């Protein structure tokens, strides 16, 4: 079982996040592995462990700071990390990012077949949930998104997905692309041995040229959308805080009525 897990380097949601020149600020002090990718890594590690053999490769498209995300993947037990970095990729939209990820998966395929690509359900910065969809489309592989249950047997992958009030069971032949939700599993905590090993593990850096990507189709040059403005919202007005002394409910109702919210 050979699995590629895509991971993203994102600003920590517990910090002040923001934009500069219409691009997300990614400062190494506050950057981290997208938490939802931990579920993808966990799913992949479990499948390889169950198969008794194989490899999990963590793949990211990021500037060199993005190594933080790969190191976290190593801490969970991943043994190989690939980072695709290129100035030509800066400013990529969903399609550019998916094209770069797909090209990297194809390059990994040249070495030996990739049975599954597993992704998280979304990146906590953009929350689009569409890169996994586009990655599957680029690769021309069956796509099973938002799996809360995932099983592989006899060359078939089966998932249960729950989204928008609908529960579906879907299956497809391998190789396929699967995205898993935050309810699919509980990501493991790294142990000391893995944390130490993660520090020195080598990260392979690939460029757009290594992947045969045409610079005109990726990055800002190939983007189909352009962020034209980004501005912080004005702070909310002071909170009106009422302590319940037996009439807190009445105060709540009055607030709603006074503001025409009923």
């Amino acid at each position: 079982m050979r699995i590629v897990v895509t991971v993203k380097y994102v600003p920590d949601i517990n910090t002040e996040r923001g934009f500069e020149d219409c691009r997300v600020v990614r400062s190494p002090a506050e950057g981290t592995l997208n938490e939802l990718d931990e579920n993808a890594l966990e799913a992949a590690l479990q499948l390889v462990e169950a198969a008794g053999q194989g490899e999990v490769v963590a793949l990211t498209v990021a500037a060199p700071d993005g190594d933080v995300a790969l190191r976290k993947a190593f801490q969970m037990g991943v043994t190989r990390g690939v980072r695709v970095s290129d100035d030509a990729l800066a400013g990529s939209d969903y399609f550019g990012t998916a094209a770069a990820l797909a090209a990297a998966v194809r390059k990994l395929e040249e070495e030996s077949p990739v049975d599954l690509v597993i992704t998280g359900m979304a990146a906590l910065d953009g929350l689009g949930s569409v890169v996994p969809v586009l990655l599957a489309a680029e690769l021309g592989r069956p796509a099973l998104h938002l799996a809360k249950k995932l099983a592989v047997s006899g060359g078939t992958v089966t998932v249960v997905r729950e989204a928008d009030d609908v529960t579906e069971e879907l299956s497809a032949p391998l190789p396929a692309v699967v995205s898993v939700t935050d309810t699919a599993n509980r990501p493991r905590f790294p142990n000391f041995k893995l944390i130490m090993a993660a520090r020195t593990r080598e990260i392979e850096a690939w460029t757009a040229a290594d992947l045969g990507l045409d610079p005109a189709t990726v990055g800002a040059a190939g983007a189909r959308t352009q962020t034209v403005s980004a501005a912080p919202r004005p702070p909310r007005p002071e909170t009106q805080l009422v302590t319940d002394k037996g009439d807190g409910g009445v105060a709540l109702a009055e607030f709603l009525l006074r503001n025409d919210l009923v």
Partner: protein
Amino acid sequence: MTNRTILVLLDPATEVRTGVLELLTIARGLGRVEAVSLESPTVEALAQLGAYGVGTVRQAELPPALHGDERHLPAVVAAALAAAVRRADADVVLLPTSFANKEAAALAAHHLGAGLIIDAAAVSEDDDRRVVGSKRVFAGSWDTACAVTTDVAVITVRANAVVPAAAEAAVEPVVEGFAVQVPELPVTLVSRTVKPRTSGRPSLEEAAVVVAGGRGTGGDFGPVEDLADALGAAVGASRDAVFEGWWDAYIGQTGVTIAPRVYIGAGISGAPHHRGGMQAAQVIVAVNSDPEAPIFEICDFAVVGDLADVLPQAAAEIRKHKG
């Protein structure tokens, strides 16, 4: 006004949901509006579409080889949308945001080489006549605007982006069929079940008012439901409450993203993951027994108290007012 053609996804076509009415209202501000459906619209639906200025409903004729529920697969919806855009020579496709629609939108944009915007709160046009989608990001703390630089734009729009408004003059919609080729599906749909909508309550995604309960309910959602019903609101929860099995749908970055007029959180601490799914609400109210609860930082109005006392009293007061 321009000569743009805007397609709005109508799915299901048996009713016109509030989210679709909002999209039609936005679409009229951009150009000529048509609807795309995957089944025959009902008479009631057609009348409502007409009132909202929809002149044409393009109804997909799907290959007979597709089995019943397969038409709901995003790949099929995407093929229909892409074919409709080509047929109508349309410029913009609008879909209500949902997980399934995000997937369909992405695939349709992939087929069409179109620019894609997910979860816009407003759609407009800039000085260069490009379509611009605005959205609120980072848990409601930043506003961004994205211009689409390709000929076709595919945009999912979040609920409650506008107040739905009928067109000045109603029209009589015509239904026009169009053939859709669907490439062989690489995925098998083994089963599909739809959770019935709770009768009498609006859906969480679309509701104008939402009352949500968290771990602080201790498992009793009675007071939460009571206040919701007094207000005609939807009921939601935190992820912890859903994991406990106390409720079935949670609000947040990985659950349902909402942007109602009013959000009332009871016994919810306000973790960043939860905030990411509700901070775009216009008015935020919280009831929490801890005066230091983080959710108070983002509230307009808050009561420090036990939700089991505060919510029923508020519900009674509102019922009294409504008479």
